[in-house]
C-alpha cells in the first residue's frame, strides 16, 4: 500500500559525495516516510553504502543537506545520527568478534553502576527483553564469533533497537542470509514498520525488493536513476533500470550429459576449527559434465566439506577420490595440480592478496609454472599478459592490471577470482558461495561461466546458501543438514518448497 501520505522522517536534498578520483554520490534526493520500507538497488560500487554512510553521519557530505524529522542536521559522527533515532546495520557487520552479544549491544551506550563499572546483568536483561519483544531469539551471553551470520544480523538489529532507533538503515542485510533467515528478517521488518519504524533497505536481490518494499530507488554510478513502486515493477524491469541494459535472470543451460565420475567422496568425516565433528559421513559423487549443487543452511558442514576437498583442512576419516586417485591427505598444491579449481567462500580471506596487483593475484594458482616461471625465475611480462587477457575477458573494472585488489568492489574482486580459477585447465570446479554480495549483472556473468565450464565436461560442485542459485544452476541437488547429505534430488524433482523443508531438517 502507499505510505507516501505519511509524515517525512528523513530527507536528503542534493547529497553529493566525492572521494579522491570518484564521484560516489551525485546530487541525490530522497524522502523516507514514517513506517515505510524504502528499498535501494544498484550495482556494486553504485554508491549505495556511501549514501547510507552519509545519512548515518559516518561520511560527511561534500554537498547537500540532510533533514531528519523536519530539522536540518549537521552530523559529525554517528553519535549525532543515533541521538536522532537513526540506526544502521552495515553491509560489513560492525560487531567485535571476541566480545559477547550483550557487550556489543551496549558498546557506546553502556549501562554502568557508578564509577564507570559495567552493569553486565542489567545489559544482559535488556538484550533478553528486546529479543523477546521482537522475537529475535538471541542469547546475550554468546560470543559473536561463535554465532552464525544470521544471528549476528539480528544482533545488529538489536543494537539499533537498543538505541531506540525509529529510522533503520539496512545495507545488504540479506547478502549472507539463507532464505529462511531472510524471511525471518522480513517478518521482523514488518513488525517494526507496524510500530512506525521507518526502514531503508539495500539489496541485490530483486525478489526481496518486490516482496517487502513500499517504494524502490535505483542508483547507478552515483546517480538516482529512478524510483519505482513494487506493484508496477518486475524483476526484469528493475534489473534493466539498475544495470542499464536488459539482463537474463534465469540461468540458460541445456540439459546435462554426465560422463565418468570425477569426484567421489566416501563416508567422509571432518572436524571444524573447534574440533567438533562437522562433516559426519558424507557420500557424494560428481561426474564430468554435470553441476551438483549443495543446498543447506550455513553451518551444516558445507564449509568444512569444501575445505577438506581442497586440502585446506584434513579429514578425520573417509575417502576423497578425484579422477580415480585418492587425495584424502594431499595438500592444496597437489590437489590443484590434479586440475581442481576452487572459488573460496571468503574472497578476502582466502581468495585474494589484497595488497597485490590484479595481475599478481591472477597467477596465485600457477605462478610457479611455465610460462609464468622457469625454475624459480618469474616472468612478469607473461604474468601481465595473462592479467590483460583475463581482465578483458572477464570484464573486471577498473580494467587496470596494476590496480591493487584491495581497491576493487566485491563484485570485481569475485570476478578476479573466477577469472583466475577458470583460466587453468580444469577437471573439477568447486565453487563456494560464488555470487555472494554481488549485483545481478555480475551474477549473470558468473553463472554463464560456470555453465560454460560444465559444457566443457568439467565436473562442478556448487555450494550456496542461495537456494535460487542452487536451483538455477544445478543438475542434481544434494541437501546438506547436520553434517550429512540428507537427500539428493534431480533438478526436475527439486522444488523450492521441498528443498527448503529438507534444509530445515524435516525429512520429505
Amino acid at each position: 500500500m502507499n505510505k507516501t501520505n505519511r509524515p517525512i522522517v528523513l530527507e536528503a536534498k542534493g547529497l553529493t559525495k566525492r572521494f579522491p578520483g570518484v564521484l560516489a554520490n551525485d546530487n541525490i534526493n530522497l524522502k523516507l516516510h514514517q513506517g515505510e520500507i524504502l528499498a535501494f538497488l544498484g550495482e556494486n560500487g553504485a554508491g549505495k553504502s556511501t549514501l547510507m554512510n552519509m545519512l548515518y553521519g559516518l561520511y560527511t557530505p561534500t554537498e547537500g543537506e540532510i533533514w531528519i524529522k523536519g530539522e536540518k542536521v549537521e552530523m559529525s559522527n554517528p553519535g549525532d545520527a543515533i541521538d536522532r533515532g537513526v540506526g544502521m546495520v552495515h553491509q560489513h557487520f560492525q560487531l567485535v568478534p571476541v566480545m559477547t552479544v550483550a557487550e556489543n549491544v551496549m558498546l557506546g551506550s553502556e549501562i554502568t553502576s557508578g564509577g564507570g563499572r559495567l552493569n553486565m546483568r542489567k545489559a544482559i536483561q535488556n538484550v533478553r527483553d528486546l529479543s523477546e519483544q521482537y522475537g529475535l531469539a538471541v542469547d546475550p551471553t554468546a560470543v559473536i564469533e561463535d554465532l552464525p551470520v544470521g544471528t549476528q544480523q539480528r544482533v545488529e538489529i538489536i543494537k539499533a533497537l537498543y538505541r531506540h532507533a525509529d529510522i533503520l538503515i539496512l545495507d545488504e542485510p540479506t547478502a549472507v542470509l539463507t532464505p529462511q533467515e531472510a524471511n525471518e528478517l522480513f517478518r521482523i521488518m514488518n513488525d517494526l514498520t507496524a510500530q512506525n519504524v521507518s526502514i531503508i533497505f539495500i539489496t541485490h536481490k530483486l525478489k526481496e525488493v518486490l516482496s517487502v518494499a513500499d517504494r524502490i530507488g535505483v542508483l547507478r554510478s552515483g546517480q538516482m536513476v529512478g524510483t519505482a513502486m513494487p506493484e508496477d515493477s518486475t524483476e526484469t524491469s528493475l534489473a534493466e533500470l539498475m544495470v542499464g541494459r536488459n539482463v537474463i535472470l534465469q540461468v540458460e543451460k541445456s540439459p546435462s550429459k554426465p560422463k565418468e565420475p570425477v569426484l567421489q567422496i566416501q563416508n567422509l568425516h571432518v572436524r571444524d576449527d573447534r574440533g567438533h565433528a562437522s562433516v559426519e559421513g558424507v557420500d557424494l559423487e560428481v561426474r564430468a559434465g554435470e553441476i551438483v549443487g549443495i543446498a543447506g543452511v550455513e553451518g551444516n558442514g558445507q564449509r568444512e566439506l569444501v575445505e577438506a576437498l581442497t586440502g585446506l583442512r584434513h579429514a578425520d576419516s573417509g575417502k576423497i577420490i578425484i579422477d580415480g586417485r585418492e587425495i584424502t591427505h594431499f595438500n592444496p598444491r597437489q590437489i590443484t595440480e590434479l586440475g581442481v579449481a576452487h572459488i573460496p567462500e571468503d574472497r578476502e580471506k582466502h581468495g585474494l592478496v589484497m595488497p597485490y596487483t590484479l595481475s599478481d593475484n591472477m597467477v596465485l594458482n600457477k605462478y610457479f609454472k611455465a610460462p609464468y616461471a622457469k625454475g624459480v625465475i618469474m616472468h612478469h611480462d607473461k604474468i601481465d599478459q595473462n592479467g590483460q587477457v583475463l581482465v578483458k575477458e572477464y570484464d573486471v573494472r577498473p580494467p587496470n592490471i596494476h590496480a591493487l585488489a584491495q581497491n576493487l568492489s566485491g563484485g570485481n574482486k569475485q570476478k578476479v577470482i573466477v577469472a583466475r580459477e577458470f583460466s587453468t585447465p580444469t577437471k573439477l570446479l568447486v565453487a563456494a558461495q560464488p555470487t555472494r554480495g554481488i549485483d545481478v549483472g555480475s551474477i549473470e556473468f558468473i553463472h554463464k561461466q560456470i555453465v560454460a565450464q560444465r559444457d566443457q565436461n568439467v565436473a562442478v560442485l556448487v555450494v550456496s546458501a542461495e537456494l535460487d542459485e542452487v536451483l538455477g544452476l544445478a543438475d542434481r541437488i544434494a541437501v546438506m543438514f547436520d553434517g550429512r547429505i540428507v537427500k539428493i534430488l534431480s533438478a526436475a524433482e527439486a522444488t523450492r518448497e521441498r528443498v527448503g523443508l529438507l534444509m530445515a531438517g524435516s525429512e520429505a
Partner: protein
Amino acid sequence: MTTAAVPKARSRGDYAKIIGLIFGVLVLIGIIYGYITNPVTTTAVLASTLRQSTPLVLGALCGLIGERSGVINIGIEGQMLMAAFIAFLANVYTGNLFVAVLAGFATGAVLGAFLAFMSVTLKMDQIIGGTVINILALGLTSFFYQTGLTTQGKMQPIPLGPLADIPLIGPIFFDNPPITYTTLILVMLVHYVLFYTRWGLRTRAVGEHPSAADTVGINVFKIRYINVIIGGGIAGLAGAYLTLEAVGSFERAMTNGRGFVALAVMIFGKYTPFGAWGAALLFGFATALQTQLQFAGQLEIPHQFIGMLPYLLTIIVLAGFVGRTRVPSAVGKPYEKE
C-alpha cells in the same frame, strides 16, 4: 553430535593449561622446600625476583594499555630512559622524590602523546614511531647527561607494619619501596579497568574493531590518544623506578634493553595484566636464580651459560606452554574514517 567430539576436542591449548598448572604447583613446592631448607637465601632470591620484575611489569602494562586500543608501542625502552633521566634531574634539583616521580610519569606521558601523534594523527607506521622514540631518547639523554650531579638519595622500603613480619611473604611483598607497591596495585587496577569498566570495554572494542566502535559513536582517536598517553606515563614510572628507587642515580643507556624485555613480557602474558605480571616474575626469578647460582659458585658450568638461564627459560616456557598469543586485531593499523 558435537558432544561426542568434545573429549577429543581437548586441544593443545587445554592441556598446555594443565601442564602450566603442574608447572606452577612444582614451582610452589620448590619455593616452600627451599624456604624450609634455607629460608634466608630463598627469601633473598624471591625478594630479588620481585625487584627485577618491577620495571618489566610497568613496561608491559604500558605496552598492553596501548595495544589493547590498537597502538603498538615499541618505544617503551625510550620512554623509560627519558623518564629515568628527567626524574633524576628533578630529584637532583628539587630534592623532592615525589616531585621527581611525577616528573618521570609526565615525561613518559609526553612521549606517549608524541607516539600517539605519530601513529594516530600522522598515521605513521607504529613500529617506526616507537623506534623514533627509542633512538631519540637514547641520543638526547646521552647528549645532555653530565656527571657530577648527585641526588639526595633514593626511595627506601616502607614495611607495612605487622604484614611485613609474616614469614616469607612479609619480606617479599610487604617491605618494599613506594613504586614497587604502586606496581602491584597497578596490575590489579589495570585489570579491573580493562575488563570491568566502560573505558575498558571501549578500549578493547577500539583495539579489536575500530569501525564497529566508530559506528556506535565512540571517538576512536580520543580513546587511542588517552590510552597511549597513560601507558607512556606508566613507562615513565618504570624509568623513575630505575633512577629513584632501584639505583638512585642515572647512567647513559641504563635501561639496557629492559623496555624490549618488557615488550616480550607483554606478549608472553597474552596482553593481560596478570599474565604480564606472571611472565615478569618468571623472568625476574630466572635472573635472581642465575645470580644465586653464581653466588653459590658450586657449579662447574661457565657463568655465561648460567647467564643464559632467564632467556632460555623464557623461550622454553613460551614454546612449550604458552604458544601462540592472540594479538588485538586492529593493532598496528591506523584507523581511516573515510
